[in-house]
């Protein structure tokens, strides 16, 4: 028997030279309902949406789904939302997933973390809890969350998790409203002994909704780079990434070139399974299809599609830096054959500004 650090174990189960498809990483959005109303969110809907509540997977459907994922070899399970702790059956789902042997990451806004949540997570620890922190001050946080009192609840949730010794990471989306507080959020995280990361790339909504309009909060490419440069470790990571991945153009005509549908499977609150969350227009219902068929046939057919159009990105050596992909094009433009200028502009600005790329 070997006791392997996860980093080492992962190199064994994610061999870079393998064409084998195993859904090692499963993401399950338990609900799109959320008690926050974040301005930048790509999927949130009001907590009071009873129609949506009725369409979500039932407890027994989730249990059956977890059985299926375990039998197909899923190991890492992300429980996310919306706000997953809103589900009244969260404890039942969580414990079932634990007992199936998943390594669970829980993404939450932290505002609903109470004594019972801490008791559950302390006794049966997740692989990690990640709480989204949208501001270092009440004013900024609640400009993003649009719910009075949510900042205090989030901070209390963080402190409860920290005090209980559960592995916690904090993260934020960097946007026009809170970019001036990202550095302070990082310092707060350090004081709590947590890792902190932020993402300045804001996705449009997967489905149109009056509830949020994310793209208006996007940072300019210059501000994105400015934030990058504020964090030396982030710049080190960028340099390593660029040393390894920049300079290559797409080498084949596959539409999807990432791990979507290769090691990743995503299931939304209504039971639609697809290769990744961003593949908004794809998906096969677990209510009408066998999960194994979805993985082995349905998703395979989605990701096996060939790219039958030309993009400037095809010959761009910043391809890996920008992250352009078909799923992004669909979410951004509703058109698979259009490049995403938002990503392109940020990549080009990074190229100009990162000394090591000039």
């Amino acid at each position, binding site marked *: *028997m070997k006791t392997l650090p996860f980093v080492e174990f992962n190199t064994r189960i994610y061999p870079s030279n393998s064409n084998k498809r195993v859904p090692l990483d499963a993401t399950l959005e338990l609900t799109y309902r959320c008690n926050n109303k974040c301005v930048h969110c790509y999927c949130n809907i009001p907590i009071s949406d009873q129609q949506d509540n009725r369409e979500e997977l039932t407890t027994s459907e989730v249990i059956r789904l977890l059985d299926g994922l375990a039998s197909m070899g899923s190991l890492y399970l992300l429980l996310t939302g919306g706000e997953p702790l809103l589900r009244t059956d969260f404890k039942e789902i969580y414990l079932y997933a634990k007992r199936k042997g998943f390594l669970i990451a829980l993404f939450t806004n932290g505002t609903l973390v109470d004594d019972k949540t801490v008791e559950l997570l302390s006794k049966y620890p997740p692989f990690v809890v990640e709480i989204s922190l949208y501001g270092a001050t009440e004013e900024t946080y609640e400009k993003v969350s649009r719910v009075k009192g949510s900042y205090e609840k989030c901070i209390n949730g963080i402190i409860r998790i920290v005090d209980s010794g559960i592995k916690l990471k904090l993260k934020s989306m960097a946007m026009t409203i809170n970019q001036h507080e990202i550095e302070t959020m990082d310092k707060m995280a350090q004081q709590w002994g947590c890792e902190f990361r932020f993402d300045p790339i804001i996705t449009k909504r997967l489905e149109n909704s009056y509830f949020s309009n994310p793209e208006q909060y996007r940072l300019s490419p210059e501000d994105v780079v400015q934030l990058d440069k504020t964090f030396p470790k982030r710049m080190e990571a960028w340099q390593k990434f660029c040393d390894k991945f920049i300079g290559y153009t797409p080498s084949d005509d596959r539409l999807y070139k990432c791990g979507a549908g290769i090691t990743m499977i995503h299931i939304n609150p209504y039971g639609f399974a697809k290769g990744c969350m961003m593949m908004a227009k794809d998906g096969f219902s677990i209510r009408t299809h066998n999960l194994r068929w979805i993985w082995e046939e349905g998703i395979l057919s989605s990701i096996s599609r060939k790219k039958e159009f030309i993009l400037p990105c095809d010959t761009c050596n910043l391809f890996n830096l920008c992250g352009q992909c078909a799923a992004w094009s669909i979410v951004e433009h509703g058109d698979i054959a259009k490049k995403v200028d938002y990503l392109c502009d940020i990549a080009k600005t990074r190229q100009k500004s990162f000394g090591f790329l000039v």
Partner: protein
Amino acid sequence: MHTILRKNEHVVFRKIDDEYILVPLVSSVADGESIFNLNETGAIIWEKIDGKKKLTDIVKEIQREYEGEEQQLENDVFSFVHEMATANLIEVL
């Protein structure tokens, strides 16, 4: 040799692709930074632990099923069982 082995009820055995692992459910069995990885023989021994069989029975079964010098196989099973007991993955009754 006549002791009975029982799996820790808070440990789940899983086969992930070609790897066999033991996933602890509670923090007392794991540090959260690493995972218990078994080879194929270890996985077979794990499957044989049912809370009823004696250690000696498991050794005999392994000796029947595997080619090799009997004493060496016995030593290998003992060593594996000792490791698992030390890691709190099984109980020795």
